[in-house]
């Protein structure tokens, strides 16, 4: 096994089995790190807790819901707005955060009365919202508050409201991934099948494991609707509580982030016979094939192909402008979970960048299997890295850019390594054909930023050339490209709108205007 031992972790020998280098000729039977295990004491993990995974990754993107945290206010406040999961209802779920604000006296005497009062107060404060999710925390779990009983009591007294209870305290798993699992199962157990949705097409699907980061969901749903497919629900980005109660009525579950939502797809397959289709929404080739797969399933291949042709004709020349300039850029692909494998091959294949390392904070071995299978030889694959390991890897590999989250991203910036937010994005959406151009543009802007170049100079000792300091990104990037070749092509920089999502809202879809249709 080609394990990689970090010098900084020699004092934590268990860490050795959490990093491997994919050597030439290695395959998954000889090269796979351990994964999804409890973080080893002594290592400072970058993971989140199971409460955060349940509430802030999966639960809170549901848009028409009061999301109430039953615990100390810090649990919700410190995890609030950690991802930009926008919605088309003025971001209700994103603007407000709710907590019962448990104190020491509540721990001693119990907090069920406090919870009931908070639930009723919240509904009264926002009378137009009739749906709520209540999330257990470590504190309320340890004192044994019966949240389910309180929710039932309130629903009995307020018949027009519906409440979902998520019992996923912070300690309920090695990482946020434990929370993903628990809330998936809780939703299918408690809510799926309790609402009959309106069916308006012969072709009905759920879009699962998609969280509408900066509009990803809205871009993808636009494609599906243009094909004539009704997206019955999205689990959970920009998703509606009642639509998600009706997930059982779809003919197909299209799964994007298998790490966070394969559980509900698997359960829907077992309980309702709805098949699961995994797709990749990033990159021209994977996205095209994904749309074709969905189209083929419903007999709408021509419709899918028409969209692919139109979108590629519009966006490929702009993507190519960036790809020409990104060739050979060294990337550490260090996301949380699924983007590890969504991006590992396609950013190399389509943008020409070299992935020198990949890691996952909370992924399972299955995620590493996908990532290692897709990345090039020589890549360093790390499970649940700590900050010192990240620093050591950056010093050793000397990447041009890190695609990661805010916490390790700030560490990278201090080391003068550019970082792009792989979780919440910089200027997304990154899904869709246009999104892929925006992603390439953001990588380009980071790698060739003149400010970044300047920040490497130390005015106390370096000789500063004051005559030739004016630089643009293109002056830096174009040094290495063939100018004649670039000049004769129709490649150009991104010309899309700053906001490419809002205009999709309220758009008419002729193929979906059939009215009510009954399906099995």
């Amino acid at each position, binding site marked *: 096994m080609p394990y990689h031992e970090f010098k900084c972790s020699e004092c934590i020998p268990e860490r050795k089995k959490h990093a491997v280098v994919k050597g030439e000729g290695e*395959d*998954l*039977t000889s090269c*796979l790190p*351990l994964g*999804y295990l409890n973080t080893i004491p002594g290592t400072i993990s970058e993971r989140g807790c199971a409460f955060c995974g349940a509430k802030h990754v999966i639960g809170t993107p549901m848009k028409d819901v009061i999301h109430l945290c039953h615990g100390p206010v810090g649990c919700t406040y410190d995890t609030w707005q950690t991802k930009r999961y926008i919605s088309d209802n003025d971001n209700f779920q994103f603007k407000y955060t709710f907590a019962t604000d448990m104190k020491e006296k509540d721990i001693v005497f119990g907090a069920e009365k406090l919870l009931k009062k908070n639930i009723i107060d919240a509904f009264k404060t926002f009378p137009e919202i009739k749906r709520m999710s209540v999330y257990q925390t470590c504190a309320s779990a340890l004192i044994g508050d019966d949240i389910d009983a309180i929710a039932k009591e309130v629903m009995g007294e307020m018949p027009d409201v519906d409440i979902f209870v998520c019992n996923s305290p912070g300690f309920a798993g090695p990482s946020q991934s434990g929370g993903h699992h628990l809330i998936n*199962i809780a939703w299918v157990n408690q809510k799926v099948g309790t609402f009959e949705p309106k069916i308006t097409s012969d072709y009905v699907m759920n879009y699962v494991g998609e969280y509408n980061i900066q509009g990803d969901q809205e871009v993808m749903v636009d494609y599906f609707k243009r094909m004539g497919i009704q997206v019955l629900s999205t689990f959970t980005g920009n998703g509606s509580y009642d639509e998600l109660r009706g997930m059982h009525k779809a*003919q*197909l579950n299209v799964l994007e982030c*298998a790490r966070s939502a*394969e*559980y509900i797809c*698997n*359960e829907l397959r077992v309980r309702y*016979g*709805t*098949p*699961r*289709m*995994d*797709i*990749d929404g990033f990159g021209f*080739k*994977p996205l095209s*094939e994904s749309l*074709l*797969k969905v189209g*083929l*399933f419903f007999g709408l291949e021509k419709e899918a192909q028409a969209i692919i042709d139109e979108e590629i004709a519009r966006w490929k020349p702009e993507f190519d402008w960036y790809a020409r300039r990104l060739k050979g850029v060294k990337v550490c692909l260090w996301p949380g979970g699924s983007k590890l*494998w969504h991006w590992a*091959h396609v950013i190399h294949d389509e943008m020409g960048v070299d992935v020198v390392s990949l890691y996952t904070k909370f992924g*399972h*071995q*299955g995620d590493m*299997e*996908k990532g290692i*299978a*897709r990345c090039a030889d020589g890549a360093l694959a790390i499970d649940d890295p700590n900050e010192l390991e990240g620093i050591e890897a950056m010093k050793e590999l000397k990447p041009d850019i890190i695609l990661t989250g805010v916490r390790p991203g700030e560490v990278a910036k201090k080391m003068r390594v550019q970082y792009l937010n792989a979780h919440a994005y910089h200027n997304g959406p990154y899904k869709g054909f246009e999104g892929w151009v925006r992603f390439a543009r953001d990588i380009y802007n980071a790698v060739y930023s003149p400010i970044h170049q300047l920040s490497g100079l130390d005015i106390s000792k370096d000789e500063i050339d004051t005559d030739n300091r004016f630089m643009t990104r293109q002056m830096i990037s174009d040094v290495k490209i063939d100018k004649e070749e670039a000049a004769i092509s129709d490649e150009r920089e991104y010309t899309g709108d700053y906001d490419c999502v809002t205009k999709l809202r309220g758009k008419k879809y002729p193929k979906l205007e059939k009215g009510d249709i009954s399906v099995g």
Partner: protein
Amino acid sequence: MEDMMKDQVDQLVDYIMKWCLWQFNSRAWDRKDQNEGILTKTMQILCEEPTEHDTPADRCYWVEAVLLARDFKSTYPWISTMGNNEIKLLMNGLKERIDYLTISGSLNKELTNPTY
């Protein structure tokens, strides 16, 4: 001859590993079903034999198989020069190798977890 077949199988394995996701469902029994369903249908399509895709599950396998057969043909033109017997031999070798990499030889400790 054997070396050539091994090389061809390796090329197809590389393609699947890089561009597909279906072989990585999270449990061993699930991977077995996926590999069997999709690779059998891919073989049938490459051999221009009829495929069943009436049930939702079969339809999903069929969709993956159609795309895979198309990609194989466009990426590896040598497939189109093969007779049906050769294709079947090749696809059997491919399935054996994918089963080994994703199930019997896999280091993934979650594959045998009895629940999801």
